[in-house]
């Protein structure tokens, strides 16, 4: 797949390489996201707000049997009232081909700032959850997850 990562495109644009709208065809296949790509994804999601550790609890198994399906729960300490509530929760990763995992939008009607899903992890890595509050503040938690594969990795279904 030939695709320029979003941040690479911006870097190239800044460097003046992409001139006059011409697309530079680069044979780059982003095998892994980089920490920079993850930071870009975070900024794209929450803007320039500073992120503080706390109030968010990211629940992932520390050791995973198969990266294809990893149960994941995020819960945020918040009363979820009309004025004091979590308006969004984002999950990011460092080593998958793409830094975003899921972005959830909540409102006071949630009653509880808590959701669960199952995610894919391409490798052992750090996963980060960031919660945006109604007052604009951002809080986070992160977990380091070790990913093992099933012992006998199969070929595509014959």
């Amino acid at each position: 797949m030939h695709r320029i990562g979003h941040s690479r495109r911006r870097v190239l644009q800044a460097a003046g390489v992409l001139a006059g709208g011409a697309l530079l065809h680069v044979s780059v296949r982003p095998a892994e996201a980089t920490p920079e790509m993850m930071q870009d994804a975070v900024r794209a999601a929450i803007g320039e707000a500073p992120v503080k550790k706390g109030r968010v609890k990211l629940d992932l198994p520390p050791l995973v049997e198969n990266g294809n399906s990893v149960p994941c729960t995020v819960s945020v300490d918040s009363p979820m009232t009309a004025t004091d509530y979590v308006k969004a929760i984002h999950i990011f990763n460092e080593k998958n081909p793409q830094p975003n995992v899921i972005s959830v939008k909540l409102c006071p009607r949630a009653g509880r700032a808590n959701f669960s899903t199952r995610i894919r992890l391409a490798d052992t890595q750090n996963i980060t959850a960031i919660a945006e509050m109604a007052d604009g503040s951002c809080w986070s938690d992160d977990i380091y997850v070790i990913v093992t594969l099933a012992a006998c990795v199969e070929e595509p279904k014959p």
Partner: protein
Amino acid sequence: MKRAAAAIAALLAAGSAIAGEIPLDQRHSDSDFISADTRAMQTDDSQNPAMLAVLDGETLWNTKAGETNKSCADCHGDAAVAMKGVAARYPSYAPELGRPVDLEQQINLSRATDQKAPPLPFESKELLALTAYIAHQSRGMPIAVEETAQTRPSIEAGRALFERRQGQLDLSCAQCHDDNWGKKLAGNPIPQAHPTGYPIYRLEWQEVGSLQRRLRGCMSAIRAEPYDYGAPEMVDLEIYLMWRARGMTVEAPAVRP
């Protein structure tokens, strides 16, 4: 794959034990060898992805098919009643063929005979859905495949296949699953390989699959030529494995890594 091959070689170099059946009271479901999270996925119907296949199977059970334009329900009625305990005793002897057949083959036999409908291909979404739905009706019941005059030849043939060294790694099923269960292979515990939960949702496949698919995968992994879907060797292996697991609880549809 190199990792697993090296690990297997090291395991065997440590000394070859004589293949022996696991004592009945030392048998554990493969569910005991998976992580707590994977087990939780299996026991919670709202989280078990295989329940989606069960749902599709229920629809198919009630859908008219074939030249006779009949659904399974038209003859069998409510599956919860008619299919209770059925999957637990398959593979079972089919008198019309003079040999045992597994659940998938039985479904296709019934389609041919009673619905005049073409067989569903092995590993097709439809066949897996019907199998999952029917197997689900046996959940919680003991596996009841018996050794009779009619099933004995197939069970013995299956046992011979299970104990036979094969493939480039010259490895038998028994060497891992009878002699070295519980030990680690490339970081994961070796289960005893009881088919208590088929068809399973395998995380590696990201979908539901049959016991035959799993056996083919295992055979590829030891670099043996896998038997074709529906081959007599497959059914022999299946009936031996189910007989080996007799009395253990059906968990269908299970979740595996």
